[in-house]
């Protein structure tokens, strides 16, 4: 990389697929806990255990990523402002509640686990928007996108235990699809560096078709014609689309801010210049 290249945004190197796995597994697991109260009572133990396992797996991947894993308990210190600390505390509550709910399945405990899962998911959503150095993550809409993606994944995962909740899942993926579209529009309008937009532009059709269009059609087919297999495939695709979006968001769109010179020195009487390499001119 030359010195001049260094002025442009480049992809961050601190969070890789392991961080993405936390958002994927943790988001799906907490989404599942949130969705649990609408499921049949007999599914509770399996759902609660699956949710707890998914959240734990996500945290395990984060643990693999940190530089000093044996100091990992320090993560609990800064609840005052850090969403990562808050996520850690929320994970403790969500894991405890879901494991207890799996052993003593009752509506009250499942609701407590759902609330804790919701808080965990909200913390995850805020983690990305607090990353001010990454324009594609810090957009306020990313919080809503992560939340809705988690809810959708949770609703979709119910298909693992029996017939999916078709109407609920359909509504979730429609709202998520609208949010994804809005995110894409903001990126197109220059809210992210050029390289991030070019990657999003390339992958977005795949994400949208996999996560929104095909599942929506399949779920509608089930609603209209009573085709449970279509609903199950739709749920699987809705889940896969969510994971695909989050994987791309974390591992492909994480270009940093780069550098900018809003005003060059006016030596030589030339016109005033400004420079923000790697960003679209019309913003």
């Amino acid at each position, binding site marked *: 990389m030359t*010195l*001049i290249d*260094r*002025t442009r945004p480049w992809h*961050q190197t*601190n*969070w890789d697929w392991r*961080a993405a796995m936390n958002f994927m597994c943790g988001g799906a697991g907490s989404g599942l806990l949130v969705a649990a109260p609408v499921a049949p009572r007999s599914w509770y133990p399996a759902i609660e255990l699956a949710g707890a396992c998914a959240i734990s797996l996500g945290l395990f991947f*984060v643990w693999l*990523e*940190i*530089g*000093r*894993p044996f*100091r*990992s308990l*320090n*993560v*609990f*210190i*800064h609840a005052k*402002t*850090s*969403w*990562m*600390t808050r996520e*850690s505390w929320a994970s403790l509550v969500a894991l405890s509640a879901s494991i207890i709910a799996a052993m003593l399945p009752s509506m009250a405990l499942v609701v407590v686990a759902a609330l804790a899962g919701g808080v965990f998911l909200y913390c995850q959503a805020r*983690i990305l928007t*607090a*990353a*001010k*150095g*990454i324009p594609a*993550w810090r957009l306020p809409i990313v919080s809503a996108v992560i939340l809705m993606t988690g809810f959708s994944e949770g609703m979709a995962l119910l298909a693992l235990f029996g017939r999916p909740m078709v109407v609920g899942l359909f509504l979730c993926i429609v709202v998520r699809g609208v949010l994804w579209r809005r995110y894409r529009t903001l990126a197109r309008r220059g809210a992210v560096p050029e390289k991030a937009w070019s990657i999003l532009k390339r992958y977005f059709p795949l994400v949208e078709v996999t996560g929104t269009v095909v599942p929506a059609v399949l779920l509608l087919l089930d609603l209209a014609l009573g085709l449970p297999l279509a609903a199950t495939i739709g749920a699987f695709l809705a889940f896969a689309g969510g994971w695909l979006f989050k994987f791309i968001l974390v591992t492909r769109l*994480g270009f*940093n*801010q*780069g*550098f*900018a*010179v*809003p*005003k*060059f*020195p*006016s*030596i030589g009487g*030339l*016109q005033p*210049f*400004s*420079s923000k*390499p790697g960003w679209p001119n019309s913003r």
Partner: protein
Amino acid sequence: MTRYAMTADLRRCVGCQTCTTACRHANATPAEVQWRQVLDFEQGTYPQVRRVFVPVGCQHCADPPCEHVCPTTATKKRSDGIVSIDYDLCIGCGYCAVACPYQARHITHKSQSAFGGKRTESEEKRFDESRMSVATKCTFCADRIDAGKARGLTPGVDSDATPACVNSCIAGALAFGDLEDARSPVSELLARTEYFRMHEELGTEPGFYYIVDDK
């Protein structure tokens, strides 16, 4: 109150990278890590072309996003405005690095020699295990400032209490001092010049000012 800040006069900087080298020498940063860098910006088309050299690094923000996100409180803003890292608390999660809009933070997992192969004798001597796999960045040479102040010296005026990059600048482009002291080098410069702060729109209130013109 004290608020330490740095200025870089973009009319003076010649991009010699002496500050980069001085920083590496003073702070013994790993081979691939530069806490103080000088960027080369070129803009326009012939004959309307401009080139400017821009020193960058931690901007010691008044509202540092890195401090807000740090889950361990390893990153702290001192009462004098310097943003510091406690290497013994940091878990190397990298959250501060993605929160910093100035790309100022580095996490090194493996120490390499700047010259390839085994570390040199000097590199071996100055190797600091506590800085491996944790976040590191420009400290404004806080140790030097603290030691100098303890001896009654004035940061930004006396070289023994001034960051190494400022001391080394061959063009006098870099200056350092207390913004709250009207007689400090930075206050005097900012009073008579036009300047900007990078990415100010992000609300970080950086403590690094880029001078572009006289008033």
